């Protein structure tokens, strides 16, 4: 793994410049672009936030989680229940805390199981929460689904998602280049060995799980307002987790740039096809998944990065 200190200052500065430009562009976009373009960008940032937060646990430690849908749904429901009662921004933060709290509560027993057990356990968690909410809704209200009235304007939602996704990307980036990140990567390489040399792997996994869960909670809460109608079938839909995984794998699992590239590619494909040809879109998603694993198991970004690194080494000589 490359450490932060080995990088030359010029590159660091250029990177900051690029990030600054992108942020400026995203901040100014709603002032000039049409509502359609703003909402596409909103979707894009939503997927970036979800994917960036997913790799914090699953990309760095190798614990492939299908639980993002569960946390997304929890956030959406928290918003549905608190909307018009407490301020909107407060609900978003609360949704993040609730999802993180839930992840922390179940984290220790859940993260004891590894490999395929963890995958199906988290899939089971999503389905469990879905049916739990269906039954609760029927019991409490008699109907399934809630309509949210007087939702905030598109621009307010846009800037909220922007803030959440910037924090998600920064978190994923910062963690990778920290001691915490090194510990997480050591879990991926060899968890038992990492434990043996004194890394408290269960603590780090647990922290990563909670942190990673807070973002789908916040995104879910904002999305509930964006859609203005929610029910357990749509907000606890495992497709959310599946899409996030495809995005992460397309980009490459190990860094946040990959997550962003994957999210951008898939969102554009989805934008072109989803509304008119949903089934075709899902088939293409499937073909991409099979193709990536079969022919480029490292994802798109990693090989390109490697080639660039090689080139820059050669030019230094």
């Amino acid at each position, binding site marked *: 793994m490359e450490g932060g200190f080995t990088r030359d200052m010029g590159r660091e500065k250029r990177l900051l410049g690029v990030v600054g430009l992108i942020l400026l562009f995203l901040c100014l976009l709603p002032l000039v672009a049409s509502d359609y373009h703003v909402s596409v960008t909103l979707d894009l940032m939503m997927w970036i936030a979800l994917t960036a937060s997913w790799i914090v646990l699953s990309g760095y430690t190798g614990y492939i989680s299908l639980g993002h849908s569960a946390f997304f749904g929890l956030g959406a429901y928290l918003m549905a229940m608190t909307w018009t009662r407490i301020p909107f921004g407060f609900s978003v933060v609360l949704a993040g805390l609730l999802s993180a709290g839930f992840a922390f509560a179940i984290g220790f027993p859940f993260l004891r199981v590894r490999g*395929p057990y963890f995958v199906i356990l988290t899939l089971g*968690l999503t389905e*469990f929460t879905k049916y739990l909410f269906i039954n609760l809704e029927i019991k409490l209200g008699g109907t399934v689904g809630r309509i949210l009235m007087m939702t905030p304007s598109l621009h307010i939602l846009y800037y909220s998602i922007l803030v959440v996704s910037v924090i998600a990307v920064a978190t994923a980036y910062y963690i990778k280049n920290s001691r915490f990140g090194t510990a997480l990567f050591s879990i991926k390489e060899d968890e038992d060995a990492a434990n043996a040399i004194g890394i408290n792997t269960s603590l780090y996994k647990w922290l990563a799980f909670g942190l990673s869960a807070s973002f789908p909670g916040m995104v879910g809460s904002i999305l509930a307002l964006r859609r203005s109608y929610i029910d357990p079938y749509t907000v606890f839909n495992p497709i959310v987790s599946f899409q996030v995984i495809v995005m992460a794998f397309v980009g490459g699992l190990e860094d946040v740039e990959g997550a962003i590239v994957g999210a951008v590619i898939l969102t554009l494909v989805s934008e072109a096809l989803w509304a008119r040809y949903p089934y075709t879109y899902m088939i293409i998603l499937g073909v991409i998944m099979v193709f990536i694993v079969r022919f480029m198991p490292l994802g798109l970004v990693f090989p390109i990065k490697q080639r660039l690194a090689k080139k820059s080494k050669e030019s230094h000589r």
Partner: protein
Amino acid sequence: MELTRILQLVFTGLIMGGIYALIAVGLNLIYGTMRLLNIAHGELIMLGAYTTYWLYMMYGVSPLLSMVLVLGLSAVIGLVVCLFLFFPVIRSSRSIAVLESNSLLIFFGLSFIFTNTASLLWTADIRGYSYMTQVVHIAGVPLMHNRLLALGIALLVCIACYILLQKTMLGKAIRALIQDREASQLVGINANFIYLFSFGVAFGMAGLAGCLLSMFYEITPFMGLPYTIIAFIVIVLGGLGNILGSLLGGFLLGLLETIGVSVTSPGLRPILSYSLFILIILIRPKGIFGRGVY
């Protein structure tokens, strides 16, 4: 509770259990021998159900005949998938962990492809047909012919599986491979042949289960995932890699579900199964039979 009511529950439980066992054994066979977790398993059930449905509706082919056809077709799909997707991926994966996550993605991809191709071709409408719906009374319990047939065939296939695994050389080889991949190859077991065999049998059994289910359950392009998850619950109950555990686990889950639903309400069925599943994976991750019943 009166006796007929109890018998009725036991019969219903056994019928569902038989189907669950059929589905789970295949899933577990692939996991046990190759360490691949087939998320697309339920999709084969869906394809089997649709094939039976269309053959019956369009050409009047009896589901009894389709059964054989579907079994063969699904097995061929299994062989093709194994040869052209999994052999290369097994070769290119550096470690078991990488193989596990890579194969998971391929299966996700296959699941998307199958489900959505079915939706595209046949729309998302719920379909069904009626076949062998005469009622027969056994010990006072009214049962439809098609359900009895499903139970009979599921039992037959399960027993065949048991004999294959316990009494034949091939079965011994499969069990050896599950226990220790390297050691079994050292003593001359042809792993590639067993991989192919497992894929063929697993996909074939899933297709067969779909054919049986189509006779008394509704058919939709999305019917697969719930069965995949049920199969996961069963193999976790019986232990990953423990094939006989899955046979018993299938019947156990069928009975538990039926009884659980009858004392609570049908809406709670998924919650009951998932709670059971999460509990077992957390308390006894090696399955309730442990590693004993190889």
